[in-house]
């Protein structure tokens, strides 16, 4: 009973932290203490927080490395933007349209997660990393050559150019290849973003502390032992992976509905984006959901505050990533730390596993 309380308390702290940050940010906007640059960052920040939490589900809880989270985000972003643009006249209510876009974006990304997961989750860590990376690149490639237009006769597809769509003159181009989708309704707001963060946290934290969550963590700690006590390894791995992918899709929906033009560039949906999310997760602590949120907020806002450092931003990310990994995971560093401190509970558990 006491342990349950501890978990509930820890979860509550996380929720309250998000709400407090939200109120503080809103207060700053109201009183005019926030620059317009920072205000512009608030909605992407929500997307990054959700991405970091969802990647932490894969890396920290499932114990597999996904380098294609930007790809899942890309799927969610494009599908939902496509939907919103098509339905702009049919569903005039922004709220309902956004809700449906969210459901569709998350479902599409989740389905991609399952499709990728089925062949790959049977294999071990490195393969999953490289295949998810490959998946992200494939998605980015496809989005860059895809042309979809709509006219009275219905939808037209092409992979060449606008001309080969063969539309009636009054037809509209919806996805314009490398130029992406223009004119998505700007429905994402900071408030909606924060609500979605809370929803994400609710899903992830409840999953972790459920029976399924314990099964997933047992697979992470020892796959063979988990299998031998009758845990369906593929099922639980797939479950965690597809939920993580679907949440990345949600982040994509937020991201897409905040931009006038959505394009699949290397900088927003490429490898670099996946690495940035990984840096959030590693800096916040692998397996620590609250840490991911804090790291995402700090690392998104800090470079904007320290403008002069922007050239060195990526370099600093790289150094932080290496240093954190060496400090947290090297057996020598763990030994050294244990000698001097007793409070690193999580790492000790890692040490115990090793024995």
């Amino acid at each position, binding site marked *: 009973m006491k342990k349950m309380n501890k978990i509930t308390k820890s979860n509550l702290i996380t929720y309250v932290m998000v709400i407090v940050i939200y109120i503080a940010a809103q207060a700053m906007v109201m009183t005019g203490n926030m620059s317009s640059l920072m205000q512009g960052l608030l909605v992407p920040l929500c997307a990054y927080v959700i991405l970091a939490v969802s990647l932490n589900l894969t890396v920290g809880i499932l114990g597999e490395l996904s380098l294609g989270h930007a790809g899942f985000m890309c799927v969610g972003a494009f599908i939902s933007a496509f939907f919103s643009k098509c339905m702009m006249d049919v569903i005039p209510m922004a709220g309902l349209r956004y809700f449906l876009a969210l459901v569709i974006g998350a479902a599409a990304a989740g389905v991609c997660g399952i499709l990728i997961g089925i062949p790959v989750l049977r294999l071990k860590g*490195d393969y999953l990393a490289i295949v998810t990376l490959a998946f992200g690149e494939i998605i980015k490639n496809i989005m860059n050559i895809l042309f979809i237009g709509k006219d009275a006769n219905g939808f037209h597809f092409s992979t060449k150019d606008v001309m080969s769509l063969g539309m009636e003159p009054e037809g509209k181009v919806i996805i314009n290849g490398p130029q992406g989708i223009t004119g998505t309704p700007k429905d994402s707001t900071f408030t909606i973003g924060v609500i979605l963060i809370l929803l994400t946290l609710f899903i992830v934290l409840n999953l972790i502390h459920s029976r399924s969550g314990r099964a997933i963590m047992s697979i992470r700690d020892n796959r063979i032992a988990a299998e031998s006590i009758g845990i369906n390894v593929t099922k639980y791995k797939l479950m965690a992976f597809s939920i993580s992918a679907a949440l990345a899709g949600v982040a994509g929906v937020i991201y897409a509905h905040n931009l006038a033009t959505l394009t699949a560039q290397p900088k927003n949906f490429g490898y670099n984006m996946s690495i940035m999310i990984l840096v959030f997760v590693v800096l916040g602590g692998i397996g620590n959901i609250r840490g991911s949120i804090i790291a995402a907020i700090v690392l998104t806002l800090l470079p904007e505050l320290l403008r002069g450092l922007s050239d060195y931003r*990526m370099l600093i990310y790289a150094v932080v990533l290496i240093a954190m990994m060496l400090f947290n995971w090297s057996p020598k560093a763990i030994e050294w730390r244990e000698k001097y401190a007793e409070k690193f509970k999580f790492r000790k558990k890692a040490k115990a596993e090793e024995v």
Partner: protein
Amino acid sequence: MSFISYLVNGISLGSVYAIIALGYTMVYGIAKMLNFAHGDVIMIGAYVVLTAMASAGVSPVVAVLLAVVFCTVLGMLIERVAYKPLRNAASPLAVLITAIGVSYLLQNVALLVFGANTKSFTSVVPIPPLVLAGGNLTISGETIMTIGACIVIMVGLTLFIQKSKAGQAMRAVSEDKGAAQLMGINVNGTIALTFAIGSALAAIAGVLLCSAYPTLTPYTGAMPGIKAFVAAVFGGIGSIPGAMIGGILLGVIEIFGKAYISSQMADAIVFGVLIVVLLVKPAGILGKNIQEKV
């Protein structure tokens, strides 16, 4: 004739992938880690050659040797500083994430030192192009050089691993680290040697790649690096002939995909191959299927 010309180009590109894949496969076989930074060592090697030739004005041969030495030292340094402390880490993800960090670090250091602008790389290959079939088919000097270098490296490496004492030690370490140590093999030294050889090969691959495709940016190495890993998986990771076959097949697939399907989709085709291979034959063409024991 265009078919044969595509085929030759494919084999040439595939040879570069094969040389890079050899580095991956050796490191993977012995240290059981995916060295994500391998692709970026290629880029560093190419920059060293470019700088040595443009600024110091040394001859191409000296520049290439310089790059090989530089990358060898760099590879050993990376192994010592970033990977060795994590060799016995609790989670296998630890060293993988660190490797990604190193890759990112190398890219950004190159970005700061050499700038983001694309540099044009002058070919270092002195061989004149070969004109066949009455001028219908031209094989460039770079292609000949690449394929030749690939064959030489392949034969040399196989002999080294099969015949020499150090090669025997490598095979022993890849088989069983603990047992190798008990036999008096210097495990750390052997792993360092593997990284040194892999990085030296990366430098050569960098020079060949940039001679054939003469542009150089800090991100030049990343994509070929990942594709070479795909090649290594395709051929069966840990197997040296496998890396060779996988690399050449992948190069041919990529060039044919570019020529006959869609030039923008070439990367997607290559990665699609990876997913299909993992689905159908996860151990690769020549790989051994190792059962996991408790």
